[in-house]
């Protein structure tokens, strides 16, 4: 029996691990670029300069890749709103959706344990219906420690966020070391000058 994680920030590391070891593999199945890489960062503490509500996704990940034969680039920013089982409600979907103004894909991530089956099923159905309507992706899990068992319930729709907004988000909210990694990878992909 998996225990419910009570504190939301305790799930951020698990979400970053999921992105690094499992999410990227699933993205590659959809978009088989051999050089597709994910760069996750904890963005929960980095507030935007303009302030406002629902401006801090808990985790964000920049996914980069380049075509082999048909020249094209993939540079997608994903934002993840993380919720504990008891913190999950329909407002969380709206919050995740609001983060989509910074990113290309907005996700809601939550732990699906603790409540009775009937109750959690009802909540999950409501959440999924609303998320589907808004184009928000849904990921849920029981054990935060087992990233390969996390389930992608619903894939998000691409938002209309422009590249410069996403770029600014990475510049302002990602930690320094991750930005260095991103720059290094872009250089290898031929984007930045040596």
């Amino acid at each position, binding site marked *: 029996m998996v225990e419910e994680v009570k504190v939301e920030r305790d799930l951020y*590391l*698990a979400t*970053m*691990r999921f992105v*690094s*070891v*499992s999410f*990227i*593999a699933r993205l*590659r199945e959809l978009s088989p670029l*051999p*050089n597709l*890489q994910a*760069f*996750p960062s904890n963005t929960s503490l980095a507030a935007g300069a303009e302030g406002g509500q629902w401006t801090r996704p808990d985790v964000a990940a920049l996914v980069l890749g380049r075509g082999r034969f048909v020249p094209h680039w993939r540079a997608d920013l994903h934002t993840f709103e993380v919720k504990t089982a008891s913190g999950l409600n329909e407002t969380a979907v709206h919050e995740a959706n609001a983060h989509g103004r910074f990113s290309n894909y907005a996700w809601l991530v939550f732990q699906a344990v603790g409540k009775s089956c009937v109750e959690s099923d009802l909540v999950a159905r409501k959440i999924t219906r609303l998320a589907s309507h808004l184009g928000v992706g849904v990921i849920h899990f029981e*054990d*935060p*420690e*087992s*990233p*390969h*068992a996390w389930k992608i319930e619903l894939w998000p729709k691409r938002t209309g966020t422009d590249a410069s907004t996403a770029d600014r988000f990475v510049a302002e909210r990602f930690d320094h*070391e991750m930005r*260095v*990694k991103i720059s*290094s*990878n872009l*250089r*290898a*992909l031929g984007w930045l000058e040596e």
Partner: protein
Amino acid sequence: MPAKKLCIASMKGGVGKSTTAMMIADSLAYFHGAQVLLIDLDPQANCSQMLLSYSGLKQASSAKNTITYWVDCLARGVQADLFGCVSVGVCGLQEVRMGSRAKSGSPLPGQIAAIPSTPTLRFAEMAFDHKHFDPGDRARPRKQMTEFLQTGLRKLGNAYDYVIFDCPPGFTTLAQAALSAADGIITPLFDDPVSVWSLKAFRDFGLVEELEVWDKDRHRVIYTRVQEKGGASEKITLRQDVNLSGFTVLKSSIKDTVEALRWSQRSAPDSFKTFKDKYGPTASAVEQLGAEVAAFAKKLPEKNI
């Protein structure tokens, strides 16, 4: 369940550590549906190149998804998560995916992920050693590295069923840390006198005296590059010596065949060979090796890290 951590290690170079590590990873993932993470600790980066190809390794290096980067961060006092250095979907299993016949009841097919190394790993390690050097405590860099490695492994959670360390020859700081953190050690052995002396020195001076981690039940030896012809009586004497010295030898062995050599030059990821095609006549030995290692790992008591 936390991953079983296995070190493929030996004092001596050229005994087939990387080949053994790769074969075990392939077999565990393919036949047992296991999630396997292979961490290359050898600056020669042979294992990394076999798994990722040369261009793939360059790409991983640029994305700083390497053990070199992780050690470099430690040397600079910057926190970096080990899971952030993982390369997923490496060509180990993709190329044998067709015709896969994983036996386990695992809901997911086995996968191999890797944390590759680069030739600059040694320089990163030297920087780390320098940072943690203490004239009054020779073992301080190793103790520090062990602590960082254990924390990094803990943060992997239950993402992997097996973590396999491909160690470099000798005792680098990283190799010492891996040997200290590992649940089990597998030493490939070439049946010649020098290799057997090296095996004893590895255990007596390294594992027993310096690291104090040797435990007969946690250590296995495997004969590699076994040649069918020549020197049969000498080989029997040497093998008796190994047994009498208190080592437990796996029943599986890896023959010195053309197929084994050819296999190590892994084909393009899109060639889609079946496991049997890829390994040729070595396939059944590799399958048996995986089964033996899985049984060995199952019995290993978990280390408290």
